[in-house]
């Protein structure tokens, strides 16, 4: 039935660890943060990134678009700089935004990337897509605001606040690297297969659908519909 059953299997194997270890950042983490010192902030930050599907979906979209490892590293770095600036700055300055709204915008960033990868701007609007470098930086800042909002939902106490924020940020980066390695490997391996175009199209249409659903879900939460 499938021309590349091995690839499908590898896709399954790729997702299984994420499913098994999926672990939302919960109030149980508050206990961990209360007791574990700075290391616990690294752990919770990493956990949030590994299980924070919206961040990973956006990055997956970015990776799909890029051809060389050098480009991937460059854009991931830009995204990291963007979210780190906002995460550290907003948390330290106690800037807060509505969690549903920021997560809804992050959902739109996922939709955007899938749309752009499928050449939606050219096909639908007959215009060139905005500069990816700037867009990744912009979305990095927005994702950073989402991370900051989540971090600020925890009681961080009054001592070592900056170190705690930096530790959380370090955890986010470690989690990001951990999650991205298998994603990059999978995409690059699949690129050599004849079914890559189908995989590319399927994943990017999925990103559009997921982005819309994430947006609607968060807006429903904002208006207390759910």
């Amino acid at each position, binding site marked *: *039935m*499938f*021309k*590349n059953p091995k690839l*499908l299997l590898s*896709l*399954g194997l790729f*997702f299984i660890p*994420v*499913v098994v270890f*999926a*672990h*939302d*950042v*919960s*109030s*149980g*983490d*508050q*206990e*961990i943060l*209360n*007791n574990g010192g700075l290391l616990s902030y690294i752990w919770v930050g990493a956990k949030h990134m590994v*299980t924070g*599907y919206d961040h990973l979906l956006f990055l997956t979209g970015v990776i799909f678009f890029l051809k060389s490892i050098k480009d991937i590293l460059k854009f991931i770095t830009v995204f990291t700089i963007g979210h780190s600036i906002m995460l550290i700055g907003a948390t330290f300055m106690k800037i807060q935004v509505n*969690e549903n709204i920021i*997560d809804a915008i992050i959902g739109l960033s996922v939709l955007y990337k899938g749309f752009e990868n499928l050449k939606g701007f050219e096909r639908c609007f007959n215009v060139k897509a905005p500069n990816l470098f700037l867009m990744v930086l912009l979305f990095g800042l927005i994702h950073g605001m989402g991370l900051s909002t989540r971090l600020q*939902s925890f009681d961080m*106490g009054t001592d070592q606040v900056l170190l705690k924020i930096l530790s959380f940020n370090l955890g986010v980066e470690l989690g990001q690297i951990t999650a991205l390695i298998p994603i990059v490997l999978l995409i690059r391996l699949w690129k050599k297969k004849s*079914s890559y*175009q*189908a*995989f590319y*199209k*399927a*994943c990017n*249409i*999925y990103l559009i*659908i*997921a982005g819309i659903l994430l947006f609607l*879900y968060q807006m429903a*939460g904002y208006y207390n519909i759910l």
Partner: protein
Amino acid sequence: MNKKILLGAVAILLLCSHDMFLKLDNYFLEPEMPAVIELVNGTFENSENTIDRNRMLDVSLVGNGQRTEVDSTQWFEKDLSTYLDFTTGKSGTWIAGVSTAPRNIAMEAERFNNYLDHDGVVDMLQYRKDNNELDQDAVEKYSKHVKTIFQVGNDRSEDWKTVLGYPIEFVPLENPYEIHAGHDLEVRLLLRGKPLKNQLVLIGNKEDHQHAENGTHSHNGGEEHSHDENEGEEHSHDDLKEVRTDENGIVKFNLDSSGVWFLKTIHMEKSTIEGLTHESNWATLTFQVGSGDHSHDNASHSHDTAEHDHHDHEEGGIPSYVFWIGSFVLVGILFFLFNRKK
């Protein structure tokens, strides 16, 4: 004069409502995981001072059929709260309890009357009115006995009904984690081990602000009346349900919304001990009712943090595993379709 100032200051502190509660950030915990219980002394929302270890006559954790005395070194202080560090055990419905040693407090008559009114000790206030004692100063011996019930893992156990043997304590007749919002809950109030009848109990819910609509409630004998805004200046319990225990010492009330629920009562009696005029025993109980707007009971379907949590506003979101499984299926279907078209 100095004595009056001192009495006034003490009374003002008392009027800040020094209720004691055991609280958790999340009443649904994972087995064998570190957890923290907060001991607040003040209002339900804010602690106003910490509690010294030597005031704690008993600190107990009850789970898996065993009662464990908690070591005093497991407590720590942060800001104005006292916290208990512990590691949860196996899955089950657990209890934590703290009983404090009695202390004495002296109050001039007016302050004492205000405190009785403010904290819902209306029977003693009525007694003073009926017996022309409103102008009498008081020396009260008081002690506080607090419990919380929380759920560890998914399995229910019978520990929630354990009587800790405190001078006064609430004991539910049903596991709060087996019911959801909309159901009634019955809780028995024991004074020195025996059911305490006709005792006023104040009941609050962290997320419920609707039951005080019209400001109507009843004090004695169920006769309804309302407090207007100005009149309610000294009433801290306007937002609380006021229920009296029946002949069997049971209060029955409707859990009309999800969230954290608390019960509190102050039983006061005249004292015959020399140097004292009154003796009071304070009891509180806290627990959480999961959101009842989906499935039969939130408490009965997985409380692994991997699946969902109960802080909807703070941590809401699609459970990761649902998202990833759904995503995998969707990508698989799309891939299958596009690969066939090729």
